[in-house]
């Protein structure tokens, strides 16, 4: 397997959607190809980083304005 072929399959590999034979080939390749291994590691870390980074919770005043707005709008529905 060539590096470029591996790279095309990486998301499926990370998501566990790759068929077992390809998965084996890919892992065999990575044992010998350090850059590909690091590429996979950093791709996984990219995803985890975004999951860690989180997002601001809903501000209380936005919640209150939403409920006021809906009450007002929906009464006329």
């Amino acid at each position, binding site marked *: 397997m060539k*590096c470029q072929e591996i790279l095309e399959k990486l*998301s499926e590999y990370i998501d566990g959607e790759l068929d077992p034979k390809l998965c084996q080939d890919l892992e065999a390749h990575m044992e010998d190809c350090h850059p590909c291994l690091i590429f996979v590691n950093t791709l996984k870390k990219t995803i985890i980083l975004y999951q860690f980074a989180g997002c601001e919770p809903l501000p209380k005043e936005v919640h209150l304005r*939403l409920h006021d707005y*809906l009450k007002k709008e929906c009464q006329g529905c």
Partner: protein
Amino acid sequence: MDLTDQALVEKTKSGDYQAFEALVNRYEGKVYRLSMRMLRNQQDAEDALQETFLQVYRGLENFEGRSMFSTWLFRLATNVCLMKIRHRETEPQHLLPLEDYLPRHEEGEQPPIQDWPDLPDEALLSKESRAKMLAALEKLPAEYRLVFILRDIEGFSNAEAGETLGISVAAVKSRLHRARLALRGVLAEYFDKKIRKGFKEKGP
């Protein structure tokens, strides 16, 4: 005991406004988070939030439960966000060619690829890094950004994301892969520089 979404939908349809408020309470945080990530602006996200739930209320009458309530809700929310984005002029329209994000170590054209510290790591999650991550997400065209947000951040399955966005599973997978590669590429450039400098950040 908490009622199911479907039970609350039925109650709302029969005129119980409190049931609708319970649905709003259940999903407002998620819809707001999605809108914030898509629109990156608190005022726009709040507008999208209000518009989405108003559409939900008005559309419930015709909601027949063929898909799950949450899928339907997120479909409305993503459409509201996309409409807002289409009116903007500064949105990125195209993703760079995939090749731009792939390493060319076979050809020896790039400096050696570096691994990043293991997570959770303070340096990776510093304020500056988070800002960089957000900026990287903003550079993705909306269709790619949405798929990444739904799949990798909100934890939707391929099928759920496809149903929400009205695209095939194959399209979800392809967009997701490209979005991930693009994000990794931007972060790698940033972290590589940091790592070379020893990852020392000035204090706050």
